[in-house]
């Protein structure tokens, strides 16, 4: 199975750990971490990524700016981006989708929802054997 690299961009260590733990359960997936948009851009420049999960509100560079930067980068513009938002923050979610985010999941996130979303965007079958 092809190896996929997924980047999780999240300033909250709890959310980051939650997302990473869920994504690591998918076979053939390597999960990379960044705590803000700037760190994420460095990773995007150095790695061949298949998918990005990003929070919206982060110090330094927030998730919306990160989406804009990724979409304007010729090398990375095709990478699907999943935004992690709160259900009430509809404006943030709409802005992210308008800027080119592919999908969103709402807090509090469920591991199964994270895995399903990642599998769908990576083109992996729903019943992908997990580690």
């Amino acid at each position, binding site marked *: 199975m092809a190896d996929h690299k997924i980047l999780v961009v999240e300033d909250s260590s709890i959310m980051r750990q939650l997302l990473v733990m869920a994504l690591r359960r998918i076979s053939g997936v390597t999960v990379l971490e960044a705590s803000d948009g700037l760190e994420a851009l460095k990773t995007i420049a150095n790695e061949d990524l298949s998918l990005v999960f990003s929070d919206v509100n982060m110090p330094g560079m927030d998730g919306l700016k990160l989406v804009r930067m990724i979409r304007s980068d010729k090398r990375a513009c095709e990478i699907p981006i999943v935004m992690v938002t709160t259900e009430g923050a509809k404006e943030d979610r709409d802005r992210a989708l308008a800027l080119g985010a592919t999908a969103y999941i709402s807090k*509090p996130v469920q591991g199964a929802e994270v895995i399903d979303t990642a599998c769908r965007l990576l083109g992996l079958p729903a019943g992908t054997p997990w580690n």
Partner: protein
Amino acid sequence: MTEKEKQSKVTQRAEDFLQVFKKGAEFTQQLLRENERLRFQLVQLEEQGRLASCAEQAMRKVESLKSQVADLEREKQEILQRIDRVEAENIDFANRYVEIEAENSSLANLYIATYQLHSTLDFRDVLKIISEIIINLIGGEEFAIFLLDENSGTLQAMAGEGIDLRHFPVYSLGEGIAGGVARSGESFFAEVLDAAPSDIDAPLACIPLKIKDRVIGVLAVYKLFVQKRCFDDIDYELFTLLAGHAATAIFASKLYSESERKLTTIQGFLDLLTK
């Protein structure tokens, strides 16, 4: 007898012979036809016999096939029953899989919460981690963490989200739901979680932060995210975990910061004495 008479007699005999010959020929023709008819009958009889034999064989075959059909029907019924059993097992496995996944997700959340709570000895970081657990794992939108001042016996809001901390009164032990929870050490959960505007005097959940039986504060949740209609089993588990682990993490970080402060003071004195 004259020559003419002789000739006539010969002619007569010849005609008689011809008649006999004709009759013989006709008889032969009749015999041949009869022979043909009998042959045809024979063929028919043979055909009938063969057909009768075939019919008998066919009947035997039909009986055999009927028996096979009955066997196959029995086998089909057995297979259908087995399929039903396997489908029932599949449904059971699927349900168990969903339960295990939910359990797995709950354990992951509990692991992360525990891991993060004890990952720092900085008081502010501990409060931040508790807040993040409530936001990200429980789905709390408005909440506050009250700590008990043992000297004054009052509860003061030290951290929170969604509500300005200055709006919270200082509760004395037994006052309001937060004070009552701090005094009794028992958790409080509102019976109805409606979407009404939050009321700082009527939390949806109020959890004592306890080290054994000693209450050091309370955690009050006033509002949940809109998609969160009720507390799930994992939320109660997380509240139970927070009640114990958050309390020890807060207590340890306070002790650490106090010991650090004392150490700095003592170090300052020592520096003064040695200079």
